[in-house]
């Protein structure tokens, strides 16, 4: 077989593989874009305590053995983040939560909340290295805030008043809760709609 045929076919294959990689990369970029533009601000569900209402008060034990109060007046605000070991988006948001907690530590405490099998939760807690967060297990907490889909977050101010809440799929939606509090609006969606 002629060496030129082998070279020609090899070049053709290289072109095919490069094109396949390019198309895959483009498809991935589209996927990322869908996630980034998904919907502006955390999507609020109508259930549960409304923004501006007093949150139900809880005194819960964390997996670390401490006690944590949610919804009671305190020196700092609280971001209660509902997650589950089987939720891939939740896992992706943990580094973002960590950076938000460090940035806003002057006034905000981030609390992780879940429910279900304790052994499984403890394994997830250890595997995802969540020891630096208060992590509570309570079905009542989720029911009180009417959490139907995950990941879900509720922002409470120092007086225990709900200042923002909604489904969270990315950093922008998480930050929209803080922005809504700063702008003193119910949600970024409502702000964009009315302004």
């Amino acid at each position, binding site marked *: *077989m002629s060496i030129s*045929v*082998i070279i020609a*076919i*090899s070049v053709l*294959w*290289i072109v*095919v*593989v490069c094109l*396949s*990689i390019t*198309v*895959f990369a483009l*498809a*991935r970029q*589209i*996927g990322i874009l*869908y*996630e980034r*533009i*998904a*919907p502006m601000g955390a*999507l609020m569900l109508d259930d549960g305590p409304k923004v501006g209402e007093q949150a139900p008060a809880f005194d819960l034990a964390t997996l670390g053995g401490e006690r944590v109060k949610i919804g009671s007046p305190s020196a700092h605000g609280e971001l209660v983040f509902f997650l589950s*070991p*089987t*939720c*891939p988006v939740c*896992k992706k948001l943990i580094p973002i939560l960590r950076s938000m907690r460090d940035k806003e530590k002057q006034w905000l405490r981030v609390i992780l909340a879940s429910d279900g*099998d304790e052994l*499984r939760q403890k*394994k*997830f807690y250890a*595997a*995802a290295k969540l020891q630096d967060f208060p992590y509570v297990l309570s079905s009542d907490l989720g029911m009180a805030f009417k959490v139907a*889909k995950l990941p879900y977050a509720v922002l409470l101010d120092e007086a225990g008043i709900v200042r923002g809440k909604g*489904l969270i799929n990315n950093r922008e939606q998480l930050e929209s809760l803080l922005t809504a509090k700063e702008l003193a609006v119910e949600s970024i969606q409502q702000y964009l709609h009315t302004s």
Partner: protein
Amino acid sequence: MLFSVLDPLIVRMIACGIGLMLLVGAWQKINDLEMFQAAVEAYDLIPLASARAFSLSFVFIELSIAVFLICNIASSLTVISAIVLMSLTTFAISINLIRGNADVSCGCGGIEDEQRLSWGLVSRNIVIVVMLGMCLIDTNSRAYNLLDGINLLFGATSIYLVYLLFSQLIANRERLTRLREGS
């Protein structure tokens, strides 16, 4: 008659492409075994107590099949094992979709984006099973040359890349649906 013209190189290409897919999938599962186990538990088809053992066994079998497919060891038996593995996985996804339990990670592994259960995944797996079935067809053996080696290498890589692309498009479709629904 149709398959009597099937070149053995095509069969090797398919086997190596799917072997590569299983190899990367198994590697990803080993890297994040906890998440894979969580996905197995979320499928809710086996007792929770046996999820760990099942996850480890599954990854070991997947890895073995991948290596055997790529190295062409015990080819017919390996291909049948791969068909059984893919069929069981597809069956498990279908059961959960019928039960309405679609909001869990598929646990597929691989370098494409993480995705939840969908009929798109079922269709993709059926295509893979059909392709594996083609590997069971008797072909005339022949000696390979340098060009065959080049075709095998790039052909298998292309099959894997096409698989990645389809998986990514299925993941994108699910994201687009969520976007339209506003969640």
